[in-house]
């Protein structure tokens, strides 16, 4: 993603599973992304307040849970980063989540597990739409 000479695209991944974070981060770093990770919402929100990201990959259902509606985090991220691509990647199984996530401002809703190359194609499309990477 940095072969064009532009600054590499920057991703923020929020998930409470450190194994998922480590694997996803390694995968995208090998493809030229800068990848920051957070295991809790407050850390992700702090990073969003201080850095610009091209794409956010968000698991709204965290352990321990944040206060309030889980999907509200997507709306908050959307408010903070109007131009970033937002992918909700969740292990939650309830019905109606996709519609609710999209309503909060997510661009894409995916259920775990997902193959990383598939996630990469989606992120490339979202990042490419911003002229970055």
């Amino acid at each position, binding site marked *: 993603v940095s072969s064009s000479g532009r600054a590499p695209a920057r991703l923020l991944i929020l998930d409470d599973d*450190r194994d998922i*974070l*480590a694997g996803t*981060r390694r995968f995208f*770093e090998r493809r030229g992304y*800068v*990848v*920051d*990770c*957070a*295991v*809790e919402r*407050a*850390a*992700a*929100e*702090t*990073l969003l*307040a*201080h850095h610009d990201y091209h794409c956010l990959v968000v698991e709204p259902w965290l352990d321990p849970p944040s206060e309030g509606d889980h999907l509200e985090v997507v709306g908050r991220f959307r408010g903070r980063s109007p131009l970033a691509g937002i992918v909700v990647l969740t292990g939650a199984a309830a019905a109606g989540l996709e519609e609710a996530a999209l309503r909060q401002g997510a661009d894409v809703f995916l259920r775990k597990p997902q193959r990383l190359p598939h996630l990469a194609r989606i992120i490339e499309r979202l990042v490419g739409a911003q002229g970055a990477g």
Partner: protein
Amino acid sequence: MAEIAPTLDEIVAPGFLRVLFQPVLRLRFGAARLHSVEALVQGPSGSLFESPALLSDFARRKCAEPALDRASVRLALSAAGALPPEVRVAVAAHAATLHRDLEFGGFLCDAADAGGIAVSRLTLGIVGPAPGRADDRLREALDGLRRVGVRVGLDDLGEGHSSFRTLLDVRPDEVKLDRYLLGGCAADPFRRAIVAAIAEVGRRFGAEVVAEGVETADDLAAARDLGIELFQGQLFFPALQAGEYTGPELFGGAHGAAGAMEIDR
């Protein structure tokens, strides 16, 4: 550098935070004296959470300002023992910490004692915002610290979280003019207007104004013309390890000033 953001427990655990000390100089009648040194507590160099502003923001979101402040103060005052023995040492705490952590004043004095720093050498720089609900707890905590000789400062006035309300609540002995306001003030009459206003507010409050983030001689001259005497910034000295203050080259040619500097009392 990409990484996983630390949790609060990881941040306050020993070994995560590091501290540097930056001099504050008093420039008067052509002479420079060492007024104080400010402890700058940061995350690991090059890490996502290196910036003190980001650490503060995270603590605020977690409502964990007391935990961060205690860890920062403990680290700063344990390292401050290596500073010259008379110099004033400034450490920071959030207004929310003094409002919520009723033992913080005692903790600060104990930490100073453990580090071999007399309490009368301490300045506590308050970081806004003021607690949401108006009551007397912040004022009482600050009065208690003043009674034992701690000087009270207000950090970053005019930018971010330190507002005029915080100024009123804290009634500081010393006010830090935020670097955003000072940078470029020589060439910008609007910035200069704000610097002049804060200098005047400082005079009326009986508080000394410290201009931080001084990077050019022109901005320094502009601030001095407005009556400011206390300065801190890259134009003079970068932040240093505590031990670097007592080396043979103390404030010598390596950092651009001539000769060792007297301490401002």
